[in-house]
Every structure is written in structure tokens, then in C-alpha cells.
């Protein structure tokens, strides 16, 4: 317990609180800018069991803000979950750390969350968050939304039966391209550190049963140093809170990647029909790669990949052989 002595001294924790943390089980979904800071904080705080899930591998432009990775991880193209777990075990070998390299989907989300006392969101898209929201609501598990972009960040504790749920904030997946991403508008490295630290601190409070748990949406913009706490009401028309419909878990709202036979190409089709402004999307993407707009489709090339995007939100992702990478590229550059 010596390693946690400074934390034990904090009035609301003490020896019994630390024992509680050592018995706790946490799932961190996503291991990028938010996930690395969350995992680092929780491992050092002595959460007894931490599982990290991520589908991606480490790239050079991650190092600016993804605190557990280094140039060797980039060189080896290490999967983020494994690289993070390796570092974290060297930080605290007395707890259990598990890493899974996989995409969180409607097929595996319940299995992933079922043993967790709390789920920490560090994903990069709204669709996965809506899925986590359904699964956590169904299994009565609290989760903590966190997101960042540019100089802005926001976080909210989602406690089933107590607070509004994520569908009260985002009732359905918006049209592809309508949500800016870190890969299209950038991100400062201070904002994910800040939001992730708030998330991990709220997680500790929830695990301890502390009464000072935040019940509002906390919004921070570091550009104008704006900190706002906004109460979020449950929506009267929320399909999850009001009607108990698990539409994302039941796969009615999710986009489905399809590997096209014999080709290095995956097709992603949004489940809901939607209209995408390819002209607006082109303006966003031309800052980060080559684009050409032909009126009926938009071609976008970045690194070794090419995305062909149609006005109904459908996209062919060329240069990939697996669905996970295709979904990751779609979330990064088109954004849902």
C-alpha cells in the first residue's frame, strides 16, 4: 500500500477507499489521446484490474498527444492496446492489466463490458459511443463520455437511471462529415490530458461511491479559457431512457463494413439513409490529403489509402484488407 500513500492521505479515500479501488474493474475503450492518459492515471491510482481495448496501431503523428507511446512503437507499428499495456505493467506490476486489439462492435460490446464496474470512453466516433451507451444502460453500468477536438473538450458521467443518457445528447448518428475530427481540424495536446484526467478522477469517485460525482456536461475550451457546466435533461422522446429500445445494440443504427471479395477494399454503408455535402467534406479533407470532387463522388487519398465517398454517406476504403482499419479511417476522416 506504500505506493498509494499520498492518495490514501486524501480525506475521501483513506485505506478503505484504496482497498475498494484495488478490488475495482475498469474497461477503457480506445487508447489514443484520452485512453493513454486515463489508463496511466488509473494504473498509478491502483485500480485492481484494467482492460484496454483498441483497434489501431501507433503512428508518428500520435506522439504529440498520446502519452504512453514512443518512436520505437511507431517503428514496430505496435497495436496501441499492446504498447500501452507493456508500458503500464512497468509502471505498476501489482495490478492486472489486459489488452485487446479489436474493434468494439455490437457483437462483442456486451462481453467486453460485462465484468466492468465502470466503462471509460476514449473512442473517436459517436457511433461506438451510442453502442456503449446501449450496452451500459442494459447492464446497469456507469460510463464516462469524454471527447476532444481542436482546443475543446467535454465530458459527462452517464449513470443509468440517474443521469440523462448519451442518446439524450446525440439522438442518432449524424450524417458522415458533419462532425469534425482530430484528423481534420487538429487537436492541442493539453485538452485530452485535461479531459482524460477529469474522466479518471470521476471514475475513482464513482467507484468509491463518493457523493460529489459530477451530474452535468462539463465543456472546456482552452482557446478562450471557457469552463462551463451544463445540466442535461433526459429527453422525453429518448428511445433508450423512455422506451428501453437498444437500437444500436440491436444493430438498427450501426454502419456495417463489408470486405469486397478479392480486393484490398472495404465498403462502409451508414445504416440510416443520409445526405452528405461532398463539397463541404472536400474543404475539410483537402487540408490533410489529396482530394478530387467529381460531382457524384469525392476521392480522398492519405498515406497509402484512398477513400471514395458518395453523397449517401457510403464509402469505399481502398488499400485495406480488414474492416477495423476501414472503420478507423472512416471515423478519422469522415467522422460520425
Amino acid at each position, binding site marked *: 500500500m506504500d505506493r498509494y500513500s499520498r492518495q490514501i492521505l486524501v480525506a475521501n479515500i483513506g485505506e478503505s477507499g484504496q482497498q475498494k479501488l484495488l478490488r475495482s474493474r475498469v474497461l477503457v475503450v*480506445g487508447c*489514443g*489521446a*484520452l*485512453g493513454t492518459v486515463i489508463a496511466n492515471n488509473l494504473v498509478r491510482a491502483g485500480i485492481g484490474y484494467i482492460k484496454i481495448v483498441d483497434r489501431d496501431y501507433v503512428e508518428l503523428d500520435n506522439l504529440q498527444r498520446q502519452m504512453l507511446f514512443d518512436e520505437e512503437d511507431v517503428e514496430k507499428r505496435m497495436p496501441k492496446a499492446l504498447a500501452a499495456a507493456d508500458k503500464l505493467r512497468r509502471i505498476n506490476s501489482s495490478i492486472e492489466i489486459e489488452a485487446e486489439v479489436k474493434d468494439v462492435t455490437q457483437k462483442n460490446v456486451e462481453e467486453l463490458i460485462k465484468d466492468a464496474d465502470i466503462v471509460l*470512453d*476514449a*473512442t*473517436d*466516433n*459517436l457511433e461506438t*459511443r451510442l453502442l456503449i451507451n446501449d450496452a451500459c444502460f442494459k447492464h446497469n453500468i456507469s460510463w464516462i463520455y*469524454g*471527447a*476532444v*477536438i*481542436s*482546443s*475543446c*473538450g*467535454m465530458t459527462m458521467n452517464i449513470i443509468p437511471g440517474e443521469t440523462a443518457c448519451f442518446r439524450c*445528447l*446525440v*439522438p*442518432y*448518428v*449524424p*450524417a458522415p462529415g*458533419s*462532425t*469534425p*475530427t*482530430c484528423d481534420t*481540424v487538429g*487537436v492541442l495536446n493539453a485538452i*485530452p490530458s485535461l479531459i482524460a484526467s477529469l474522466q479518471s478522477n470521476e471514475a475513482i469517485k464513482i467507484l468509491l461511491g463518493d457523493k460529489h460525482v459530477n451530474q452535468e456536461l462539463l*465543456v472546456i*475550451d482552452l*482557446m*478562450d479559457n*471557457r469552463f*462551463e*457546466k*451544463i*445540466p*442535461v*435533461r433526459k429527453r422525453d422522446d429518448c428511445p433508450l431512457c423512455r422506451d428501453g429500445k437498444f437500437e444500436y445494440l440491436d444493430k438498427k443504427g450501426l454502419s456495417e463494413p463489408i470486405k469486397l471479395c478479392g480486393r484490398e477494399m472495404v465498403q462502409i454503408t451508414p445504416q440510416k439513409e443520409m*445526405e452528405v*455535402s461532398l463539397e*463541404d467534406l472536400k474543404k475539410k479533407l483537402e487540408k490533410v490529403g489529396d482530394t478530387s470532387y467529381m460531382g457524384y463522388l469525392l476521392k480522398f487519398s492519405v498515406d497509402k489509402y484512398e477513400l471514395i465517398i458518395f453523397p449517401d454517406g457510403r464509402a469505399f476504403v481502398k488499400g485495406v484488407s480488414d474492416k477495423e482499419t476501414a472503420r478507423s479511417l472512416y*471515423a478519422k476522416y469522415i*467522422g*460520425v
Partner: protein
Amino acid sequence: MEVIISVSTILKTKYDKQGELWPQVHIFINGEQAPAGELLKDGDRLSIMLIIAGG
């Protein structure tokens, strides 16, 4: 009438092609979610915010 308006710095577009607000855009008056049709009063603080997705 003077209303203080704060728009999320990353918010470029708020409406889809049908003129509907994107589902992830929220309007808050004085820090509380505004019901549709809510009228503004002098001195109200209007915030237009985008629920973001990066991580």
C-alpha cells in the same frame, strides 16, 4: 435587446440540407437546454454547442 451569444469555436455548420439542426448540435439558454420555441429575454446567454467525437 442584448443577448450574449457563444458559439462553439469548432462549429462551422449547424444545419443539414433539409434545414434541420444536426442531431449533435445543442442550444442552451443560460446554461440549460432550451426547449424548442423558447423566447430569449434581454441579458440571456445563448450557447450553441456541438457534441464532439474526437478522442
